[in-house]
């Protein structure tokens, strides 16, 4: 049974989002995703300042087993990346919600409303 915090938003492609006070969103992959991938050994993050359309490939996480694309959960510009997960990919396995990948400034803040809540994500990830 994977962990799905109630205070986050989710995508069907297994990203989580946290809305920050400054209007940016912090993005990571869910506990369900890290468990399915197994031990992570490589993370590739986007450039700060780069803009992405929603659902475009924005990052890559690789486990021993497989490579998986991470998709931009909404349109926006990358404001910050978490170098600590590049240096220690296993931190995502240890706590997928602490080991965030990047922060985005959404093009339209309202896009967040269209994403899944915890209950809806729980239902599709079982």
């Amino acid at each position, binding site marked *: 049974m994977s962990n799905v915090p109630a205070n986050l938003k989710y995508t069907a492609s297994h990203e989580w989002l946290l809305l920050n006070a400054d209007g940016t969103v912090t993005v990571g992959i869910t506990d369900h995703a890290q*468990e399915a991938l*197994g*031990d992570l*050994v*490589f993370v*590739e993050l986007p450039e700060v300042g780069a803009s992405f359309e929603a659902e475009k490939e924005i990052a*890559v996480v*690789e*486990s*021993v*087993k497989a*490579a998986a694309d991470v998709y931009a959960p909404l349109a926006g510009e990358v404001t910050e990346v978490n170098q600590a997960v590049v240096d220690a990919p296993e931190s995502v*396995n240890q706590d997928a919600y602490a080991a965030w990948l990047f922060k985005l400034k959404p093009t339209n803040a309202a896009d967040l409303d269209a994403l899944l809540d915890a209950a809806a994500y729980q239902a599709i990830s079982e």
Partner: protein
Amino acid sequence: MLKKTILNAAHRALNARMVDFGGWDMPVNYGSQIEEHHAVRNDCGMFDVSHMCPVDMVGADCRPFLSRLVANDVAKLKVSGKALYSAMLNEAGGVIDDLIIYFLTDTRFRIVVNAGTAEKDLAWMQARAAEWQMDVTITQRRDGDNALGIIAVQGPNARAKVWQVLPQTKAATEGLKAFFAAEVDQYFIASTGYTGEDGYEIMLPAAEAEALWNALNAAGVAPCGLGARDTLRLEAGMNLYGQDMDETVSPLDAGLAWTVSLNTERDFVGKAALTAAGQQKQFLGLLLLDKGVLRGHQKVITAHGDGEITSGSFSPTLQQSIALARLPLGVQIGDEVEVDIRGKLLKAKVTKPVFARNGKAVI
């Protein structure tokens, strides 16, 4: 409907993550694939490989039949219990399967073939036996009343753990050099494996497999899934059928020339094709120098033309990505090449196709 081994419930009881592996519901890990990998390199781990298919061959013509059926030469099997790794080829010289042949007596051999190819292999063997009018009876031992389970116990402490749990087998197995088997009561214990470590592969009546699995687990042997099995065999430079070779690939281009015996009078299926084609590619290792993970099917760019990765992953022993690759002739060990990973060209070094064995790095 996925097929299940006799140990399916035991895996679930250990909270295994189960995956569809070629139609079999198999454990990929029991938590951490990397920890399982290290357990085998440094201590002892066990794998359920009951999806693989033991095939018993009996009859007066076992030797002439096998001599013609497979690319390696069963004449090398002189001592009872000795095992031989070989490819079984089609007429075009492609690999139908790779397998291990155990010599028991001149009229009794046991062969273990891959899970996904078992039906195809058995049909091929039966057809050749009929065509060549050989006196051999070929019986699969994976399914049905006489089914066997197979547990591979691997690692530097594997033998000691097996003797702790099955003390009655110690006398017959402690003298086994690598690639031999001994039969003790209902147990067929072979000093073979797919990890690059010492250990045993134990075949036993399927109904007794779960009790042995649980006893080994209680003795501290770490259950290990197919994930660790793959990284262990990759580090050890052992080919995986379906990835590193298949029916379209010559064993000479898949690093298996050492298992093909071409220089005797003996004829075997595929020999003419291999002799005519010769070696077209070389099978070597790659060590990724940049950050990333090498994977099967990635393109390798060399000064002598392009090659292809056949198996790639992250090496838990080297803490670096490694791969097995089919490269153009002319590429030398030590050369720097480039690998196309999602459109980026990353640097890799060509190595011999063995990375780690017996607990340590060998490159």
